[in-house]
């Protein structure tokens, strides 16, 4: 059975997740850290080392914790689509069960931040004032890279902070907790679990309440507004004035 799952995991890694997923579901509850280790060896060890000790191609994963594995694998950033300035988000290559098994394996190597409890991910427990506090925290801690509207932004050397629309609450939480890629770590002493939940609630508010003033032009601020008024505003009105002054031939 383990052989079947590993084979499934390996085939997932080469891109046939659809066929592997249903067959592994009945066994899902039974995956253990040992299964995670096998999955790890088959899919991750080439860069992270057979004992997750790291190689010149990838960092050590000892002590990164289950939260980090869950974030990286379940957002599709790992395994990396290709070597580049930073790992890109894509469809996850493993099921949640497989990822949990790998998380268990990594967490067993050394203590690290764990996957958050559902209690801290539930935006419905946050009232309006909490959303407002979340917004203020977001502007102070996150907007610098992710933009006030969560539209994302540029970092140095071809890296970037991704847009934060429609992100799973658990991934928002784990990103703050583990600081993936170029992101700093916001540990519980820095931003408490309650405050993290308020930030999640604020982002959920932005997702659920789209732009009140009409089309938002990508929430990119004055650049898209300027392009719009030059191309469509002035362009359209100049086209009208050309028409007004044209003469029939």
């Amino acid at each position, binding site marked *: 059975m383990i052989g079947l799952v590993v084979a499934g995991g390996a085939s997932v890694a080469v891109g046939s997740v659809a066929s592997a997923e249903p067959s592994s579901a009945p066994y899902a509850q039974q995956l253990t850290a040992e299964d995670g280790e096998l999955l790890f060896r088959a899919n991750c060890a080439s860069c992270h080392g057979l004992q997750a000790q790291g190689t010149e191609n990838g960092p050590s994963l000892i002590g990164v914790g289950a939260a980090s594995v869950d974030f990286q694998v379940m957002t599709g950033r790992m395994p990396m689509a290709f070597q580049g300035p930073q790992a890109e988000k894509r469809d996850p290559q493993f099921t949640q069960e497989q990822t949990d098994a790998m998380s268990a394996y990594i967490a067993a190597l050394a203590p690290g931040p764990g996957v958050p409890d559902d209690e801290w991910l539930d935006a419905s427990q946050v009232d309006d004032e909490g959303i407002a506090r979340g917004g203020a925290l977001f*502007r102070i801690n996150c*907007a610098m890279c992710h933009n006030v509207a969560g539209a994302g932004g540029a970092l140095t050397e071809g890296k970037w902070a991704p847009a934060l629309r429609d992100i799973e609450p658990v991934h928002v939480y784990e990103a703050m907790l583990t600081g993936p890629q170029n992101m700093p770590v916001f540990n519980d002493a820095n931003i408490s679990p309650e405050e993290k939940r308020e930030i999640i609630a604020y982002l959920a508010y932005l997702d659920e309440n789209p732009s*009140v003033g009409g089309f938002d032009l990508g929430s990119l601020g004055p650049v898209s507004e300027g392009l719009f*008024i030059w191309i469509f505003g002035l362009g359209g009105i100049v086209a009208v*004035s050309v028409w007004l002054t044209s003469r029939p031939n």
Partner: protein
Amino acid sequence: MTATTARPSLTAKASNYLDERTSMSTLVATLGRKVFPDHWSFMLGEIILYSFVAILLSGTFLTFFFEPSMTEVFYDGSYAPLKGLAMSAAYASALDISFDIRGGLLMRQLHHWSALLFIAAIGLHMLRVFFTGAFRKPREINWVVGFILFILALAEGFTGYSLPDDLLSGNGLAIINGMVKGIPIVGTWISYLLFGGVFPGDDIVPRLFVLHIMLLPALVIAFIGIHLVLMVINKHTQFAGPGKTNDNVVGAPIMPLFAAKAGSFFFIVFGALVAIASTFTILPLWEYGPYDPSPVSAGTQPDWYIGFADGALRLMPGWESEILGWTVSWNILIPIAVLGLFIVLAMVYPFIEQWITGDKREHHIAERPRNNPTRTAIGAAGVWFYAIMWAAASSDLIATHFRLNVFHVTYALQAMLIVGTVIVYWLTKRIAIGLQKKDREILLHGYESGRIVRRPGGEFVEVHQPLDEYEAWKLKAYESYAPVMVRPNAKGKITPATHLRAALTRWFFEDRVSPVTPRELEVAKQHDDH
């Protein structure tokens, strides 16, 4: 004959009543017969005027509800994610306008979109005037007046951008504060004076408000008045054409045709603006949150018209030096100096060109850009220089959207700013001269008709079709200048200024294509007739 024809109509009676008290008929008779030439590019000024009307109307509405104060309040309006936060009364009232006052959001968006269109149309209008040489005598003063209007519009835009006291406007003010403080010795004092203490203080919003709604609009209206009166006095330029000379104006009189056209164009511009304002959001200030000096958002940009200044700062390498214990911020001083020089040169360009060419005659014909290759090349290089600085203000968005390294984007733009400007100058000049040569060819030998004919001797030729008179006029009618010779002045001396001027006119006019002379045309015609 019936009795009704003898009785004066109501309109006649009303007009008579008015005229007896105001003597308006003289004004109406003169102005009503005033003629305006017809060309799409001559309507750019109207777009400016009509968007300004939209700004005035929507701006008046906003002043009813906006509270220009930095007093701290706790927000209690209907936008949930800001509830209970401390903010300035200015920001709270801007939120109320957006969420709690009927029509407020539409008016705010109309005001902001109109402002963007206003300045964009000013830019295009200035380019039209520049590239057609419409700033030449007697219109040099009006160019300067227009240029001051442009500067005033930028000032209006920037003060307006700073009023809502959201995070974006505060970041803009922080940059201004940094630039002011970069001025050696007096910078810090000026900053204290401007902000009434340590930045950001709590004086700047009311101060900018007074400028934004009183002083600057009054100046804009006064200068628009001067601009229009001078335009009426100098008359409008027109493009050369049959019957259109340097001594007349051919077009539609104000009453009734032009007034009807202009009036309907007003509704088109206003309607387009309201349509944009009601469908596209601009400055979603609730997303930015109240101003607080610590956060800065990624993708913080000024409105498009200040972009060139922001871009200049972004393109400048971070040079600083310390002289006798004073830090000299070249990274701020050099961009300020370059922008200042750029603006002053553009403002006085009519006088520079006049001095170089020595041309003191009146010009009422708008030149085709190709017929003055050097000016066109200078203009194109200026546009390029401006556009690169402008693009640099969005270097971060260029990097993320095209998956580039933001440093490489900056290096590429730096190279394009310096090398590109020279290349654009040279290319434009060559293209303009090439187009002139093509015009000359077409005038003398007609255009290629695509009809191939075999001569009795066996030779194949393509028949060239001569232009009709109407088309030919456009190509014939232009002036060509020759470089000014170095000649001694009245005292028999050749001054350095004379040499400089001679060198500059050579730069302007050494490479040129002379207009077709009547004799050349005659010869070409006889040749074709064979």
